[in-house]
């Protein structure tokens, strides 16, 4: 799947690329300051659940930032990308003003560039491997911002290119779920000529991109546009369909499906099992975000209700916790608080999201952990008991272990608590396929190099294998599974 070095070298030697390198000296490239992403003012954006915080680069900003990229002979940035986007090639296209071309390059490997440009932790992936960071101790080229710019530019131009697909080979394959892993798998398989059907249990396609990530970070209409593109490439979508229940795997095999990719995600929220956790007003981040993002519960004309809180505590320190606390703020919370058991340094959330939350007025209560919840006479949460923590030795995750400080208990008044302490794999597929091997945590066991489960025609990836990761890692799994399934099926049927 990775781009081989010979191919990259040939691409780099293209005349236009060589010409760009000659035009500007590296010394001059290095003098340019990294562009900063324009943002909506905090006092404005907290009033809108559906207005994007990052407002995107202008063409001028993007082209100038693209000049910073030195078109390295050995582009280490690509190694940091789980889907191996040809990063210098798309950036150099921006530098020469061929934005549509840049967008096509992105789509060679990523089914969802506008999504990745928004939600990928670029600072930990491609940008962390950038020459500027590695060798010059300077801010990386803003690869993520440029990716978003190219994808947005193409979409807004109304001239979205549809990636080329191979001639149909007539082989039917299916995905279980329609989140990033499944969509990336579907995009690659349809390109290879397979007849792909995406099955989704909810009434909308997109999985966590739709129900989990708020519109102020990833507007649903942008996800829809990328889905439309997959549809144009020939991917079929089937909503309200639970594979293994609505129809069994055997039923689908009878209908001609030869292989399956299971990308059913980590759809089971974790709770902390502490007293009072089932009071009303204590909900999982999945429930809270689904009611708002998918069901539009904040709007009067929709039927789905959502609980509003004046004093809202969100338990956890990941991106989902930041999404929940900022949603609470936008839904009218007077006090929106993060309660996290370690310190800010160990927070799994992106630095950018923490910064945005702080600008918006979110209070951070780090190094404390809830012990118990209290309810009022109607059974609605009214308060919580917490304990202060200190950091001990590093644990298995490499982060310093939080240790409760005896005698440091204190109480806090709250009327809405959102628990965002992680998720477990969705149990639906394993429960309907008894012979499928799963770990004790419920994740599907796959041969890591093949992405193949204990049932040969079942491949799996994303959170159902990893137990909880990022959009881009899921997409990487989807791509790898597509490559491996393609080999598997070709061997089996000796097609082509």
């Amino acid at each position, binding site marked *: 799947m990775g781009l081989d070095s010979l191919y990259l070298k040939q691409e780099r030697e293209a005349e236009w690329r060589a010409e760009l390198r000659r035009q500007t000296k590296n010394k001059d490239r290095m003098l340019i300051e990294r562009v900063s992403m324009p943002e909506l003012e905090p006092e404005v954006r907290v009033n809108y659940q559906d207005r994007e915080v990052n407002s995107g680069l202008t063409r001028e900003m993007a082209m100038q930032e693209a000049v910073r990229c030195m078109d390295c002979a050995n582009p280490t940035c690509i190694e940091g990308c789980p889907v191996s986007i040809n990063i210098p090639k798309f950036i150099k296209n921006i530098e020469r003003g061929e934005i549509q071309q840049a967008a096509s390059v992105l789509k060679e490997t990523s089914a969802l560039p506008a999504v990745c440009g928004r939600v990928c932790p670029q600072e930990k992936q491609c940008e962390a491997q950038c020459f500027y960071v590695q060798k010059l101790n300077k801010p990386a080229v803003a690869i993520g911002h440029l990716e978003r710019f190219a994808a947005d530019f193409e979409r807004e131009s109304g001239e979205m290119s549809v990636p080329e697909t191979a001639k149909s080979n007539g082989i039917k394959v299916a995905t279980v779920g329609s989140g990033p892993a499944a969509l990336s798998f579907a995009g690659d398989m349809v390109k290879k000529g397979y007849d792909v059907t995406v099955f989704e249990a909810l009434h909308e396609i997109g999985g966590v991109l739709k129900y989990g990530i708020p519109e102020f970070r990833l507007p649903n209409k942008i996800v829809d546009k990328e889905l439309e593109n997959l549809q144009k490439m020939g991917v079929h979508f089937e909503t309200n369909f*639970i594979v293994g229940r609505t129809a069994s795997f055997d039923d689908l095999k009878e209908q001609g499906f030869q292989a399956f990719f299971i990308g059913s995600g980590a759809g*089971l*929220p974790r709770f902390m099992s502490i007293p009072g*956790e089932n009071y009303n007003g204590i909900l*999982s981040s999945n*429930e809270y975000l689904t*009611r708002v993002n998918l069901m539009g519960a904040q709007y009067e*004309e929709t*039927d789905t209700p959502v*609980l509003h809180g004046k004093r809202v505590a969100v338990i956890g320190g990941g991106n989902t916790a930041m999404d929940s606390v900022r949603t609470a703020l936008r839904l009218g919370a007077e006090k929106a608080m993060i309660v996290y058991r370690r310190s800010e340094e160990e927070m799994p959330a992106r630095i950018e999201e923490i910064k945005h939350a702080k600008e918006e007025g979110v209070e951070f209560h780090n190094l404390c952990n809830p012990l118990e919840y209290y309810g009022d006479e109607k059974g609605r949460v009214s308060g919580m008991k917490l304990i202060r923590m200190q950091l001990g030795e590093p644990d298995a995750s490499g982060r310093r272990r939080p240790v409760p400080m005896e005698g440091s208990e204190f109480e806090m008044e709250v009327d809405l608590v959102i628990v965002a302490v992680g998720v477990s794999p969705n149990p639906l597929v394993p429960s309907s396929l008894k012979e499928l091997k799963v770990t004790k945590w419920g994740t599907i066991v796959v041969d890591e190099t093949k992405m193949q489960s204990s049932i040969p025609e079942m491949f799996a990836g994303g959170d159902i294998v990893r137990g909880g990761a990022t959009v881009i890692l899921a997409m990487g799994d989807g791509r790898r599974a597509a490559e491996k399934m393609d080999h598997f099926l070709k061997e089996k049927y000796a097609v082509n």
Partner: protein
Amino acid sequence: MNKVVKKEFFSEKVVRLVVEAPLIARSRKAGNFVILRVGEKGERIPLTIASADAEKGTIDLVAQVVGVSTSKLADLEPGDYITDLVGPLGKPTHIENVGTILAAGGGVGVAPLLPIVEAFKKAGNRVITVLAARSKDLIILEDQMRQWSDELIVMTDDGSHGRKGLVTAGMEEILQREEVNECIVIGPAIMMKFAALLTEKYNVPTQASLNSIMVDGTGMCGACRVSVGGKTRFTCVDGPEFDAHHIDFDEMLMRLGGYREEEKEALELYHLQHKLVEK
């Protein structure tokens, strides 16, 4: 999109809809439920499958009108479409020949009880059924239930049909009279609570089917959590049936009221809009 092919009202507030859903009609088992949504702005609501016709490709849904979403559902006419319908969800009822089954249903809980009673009967059990409601016009599916029951007792609070009294009175009569091997109860949470207390006294294993608040129904949101034997379980994927003697019914009753204020406001608004349209 699933077409409504037939609609009838059992009573003013209880409606039966026959809906086209060929795949679900084929794959559903007793105890399964579906989640549906009426209109693009609609809410996802869980409903148990009362019966199905695999040949015609239809399922029967019975709903009690309580809020906006169930009002919209009941307003659908034959020929109209349900925007979204997904299922079958939940674990099917564990059916085997255990001897004598006591099945107790209250209100619209009788609808999901029907396929379970049918399945137990077909598995060779002796089935004694107790149906209960506040009054005569709220007793539903009596004839269908009788068809699959060796004995059927009807209880009404006001004595307008069958015997006067609560469901537990009818159940206790049986429990005193003969050996019951297993009991299943479906109905309002408060009814299930007292039925469970009763069968516990008689040491009869009892299952209760819970109607918790849900959003996705696939385990994702955790809204449907209940405490069973001190552990948090999700009704949608771990249930909907649980050992009734270990369910924390008081907590469940409290959680069912979790969105009452919001629902009340929404219903008032809905009625107001309806009146405006009618004018």
